[in-house]
């Protein structure tokens, strides 16, 4: 009985009909043909020419289709849909190209000992299989951890001052934070070099590198955290204090937990800002070839430094090592992002 009852099939009438899909396909085909024709006939040459002509043709054809089947408004709508598509392609293509290149070239440098050896006993022209980048991974990990431990509380507290306390200094501090986020990384490096290295420590170390990274990280965390905290509705703050909570209790129990996933995003953006940072690292850390677990003393390697040095040495092997380093750095950053997404979306009981 129940089967015979189901005489209505679910359908999606808002989807394009087979006819419309055929027209879409024809338009794309037409644009491809147009790009080949124009490149063959006219002076236009190169991959970029195909790309440009294809999109112009597709946009114009869709405009004409819209005007013919409906009206001028619809034509413009179709035209700008294609412009959006172009924008999206221009974002995705270079990113995909970078990812592909790094993975393709980097995989040649992968070997069993890559993550367990350092470069202290390998020379630039040694075969790929000798040496590794353990020292660089450990160095980057230490540099980022120290910078994170310093910047996260400062950044989040700054954001809390700007959004919760809103004191007299709000405007100047917000201005400073914005100005700081535009500081070129080499300036941060030079500042620490002249203010700390030349006057106090008199030597390279991981710690001074972390200090420079902190300067770059604080504004990123503070700005993102401020935006996130501003999104928390004021109702919640009022509800908190109306229940007899002090402002501090309300912020700690209601506002910050409500903004948790956004604050984790702020943290990740901060890490992403500095993990590949090269200029201050070159100036400050010394970039050794051996594993150094002590951030307060001695040269400390890092992935950006390792990559820079490998390409600078110029032998075929070291350039391959550089690509492998890039691959590892990229995978590291991507896994950090995934981890943050996971932590941010997981609901605590």
């Amino acid at each position: 009985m129940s089967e015979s009852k189901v005489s209505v099939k679910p359908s999606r009438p808002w989807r394009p009909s087979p006819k419309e899909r055929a027209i879409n396909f024809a338009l794309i085909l037409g644009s491809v043909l147009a790009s080949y024709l124009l490149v063959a006939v006219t002076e236009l040459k190169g991959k970029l020419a195909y790309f440009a002509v294809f999109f112009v043709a597709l946009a114009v054809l869709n405009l004409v289709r819209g005007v013919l089947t409906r009206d001028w408004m619809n034509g413009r709508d179709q035209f700008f849909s294609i412009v959006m598509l172009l924008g999206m392609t221009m974002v995705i293509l270079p990113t995909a190209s970078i990812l592909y290149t790094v993975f393709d070239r980097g995989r040649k440098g992968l070997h069993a000992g890559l993550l367990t050896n350092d470069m202290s006993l390998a020379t630039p022209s040694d075969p790929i299989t000798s040496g590794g980048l353990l020292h660089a991974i450990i160095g980057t990990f230490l540099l980022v951890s120290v910078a994170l431990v310093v910047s996260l509380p400062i950044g989040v507290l700054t954001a809390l001052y700007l959004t919760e306390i809103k004191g007299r200094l709000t405007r100047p501090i917000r201005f400073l934070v914005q100005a700081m986020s535009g500081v070129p990384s080499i300036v941060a490096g030079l500042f620490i070099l002249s203010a700390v290295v030349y006057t106090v420590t008199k030597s390279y170390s991981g710690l001074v590198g972390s200090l420079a990274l902190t300067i770059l990280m604080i504004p990123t965390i503070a700005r993102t955290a401020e935006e996130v905290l501003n999104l928390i509705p004021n109702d919640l703050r009022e509800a908190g204090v109306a229940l007899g909570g002090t402002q501090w209790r309300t912020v700690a129990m209601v506002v910050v937990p409500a903004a948790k996933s956004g604050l984790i995003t702020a943290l990740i953006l901060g890490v992403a800002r500095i993990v590949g940072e090269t200029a201050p690292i070159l100036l400050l850390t010394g970039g050794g070839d051996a594993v150094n677990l002590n951030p307060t003393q001695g040269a400390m390697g890092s992935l950006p430094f390792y990559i820079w040095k490998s390409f600078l040495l110029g032998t075929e092997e070291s350039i391959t090592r550089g690509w492998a380093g890039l691959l590892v750095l990229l995978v590291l950053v991507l896994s950090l992002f995934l981890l943050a997404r996971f932590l941010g979306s997981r609901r605590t009981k």
Partner: protein
Amino acid sequence: MTFENPDKKEKAMATPSSLASVAANTRKPGTNTLGIGLEARGVHAWFGKHHALSNVSLDFPAGTVTALIGPSGCGKSTFIRTLNRMHEFIPGAAMAGEVLLDGKDIYEPGTDVTKIRLKIGMVFQKPNPFPSMTIGENVLSGLKLAQLKNSNKDELLEECLVRAGLWNEVKDRLNAHGGSLSGGQQQRLCIARALAVNPQVLLMDEPCSALDPGSTLRIEETIKELSETMTIVIVTHNMQQAARVSDFTAFFLADGGPGEMIETAPTSQIFSQPRDQRTENYVTGRFG
């Protein structure tokens, strides 16, 4: 102005509810649960240079429900927010006058604001359960926020939810998130949350304006039950609601200038024979 209401006097004498004994640590045991009520004397309010409310004096006898009615922008919400010092949260806000809780001015220098807000709870226009907390945690959040100790949290949780008329709907999913409830349920959750710290006075700023008639009815029933143990002030745009739930009604109006209280009287009188022509125009629907 003080109103004598024989029915209410009996209520005021009623023994403290079991809720009061559960959360007795908010007040010393043995004291009258209801206190003597809340009094506003010559309250003015400003937002920056804008004079929003002028010279409102109003008594809220213990154990009564007072409805504040009037057209939008007449200062009702501003007034209710001066009663538990939420007004000062708005940048540029200023006020004048006195608000006496059991005869003591809550604006007196040196007063602990958080203690005042513990005694004078508030339910907001828009349901605002804490998104990071479960239903159960939401109800008990006031205890944590104000750092009150309570040995019998389960009992308090159940009692608050029962009194807010929500227990039967949520008893099997106290660990679900507050956001998973419907709008009306969320508002009752917020009422339960306000009850958990056992306030003497409960301020409600248009608590039903975002709710459907069914949920509104439930909340009105809740208000009637609550008035046995606490003093309630409710802002409402719904005159039928004011007539249904309140003992006293105060009519506010801003006629070009700052908002003023035009008239206050027992509710039946406001709706049957108001003294002021403007009140009559409003309650009979001739304007506003």
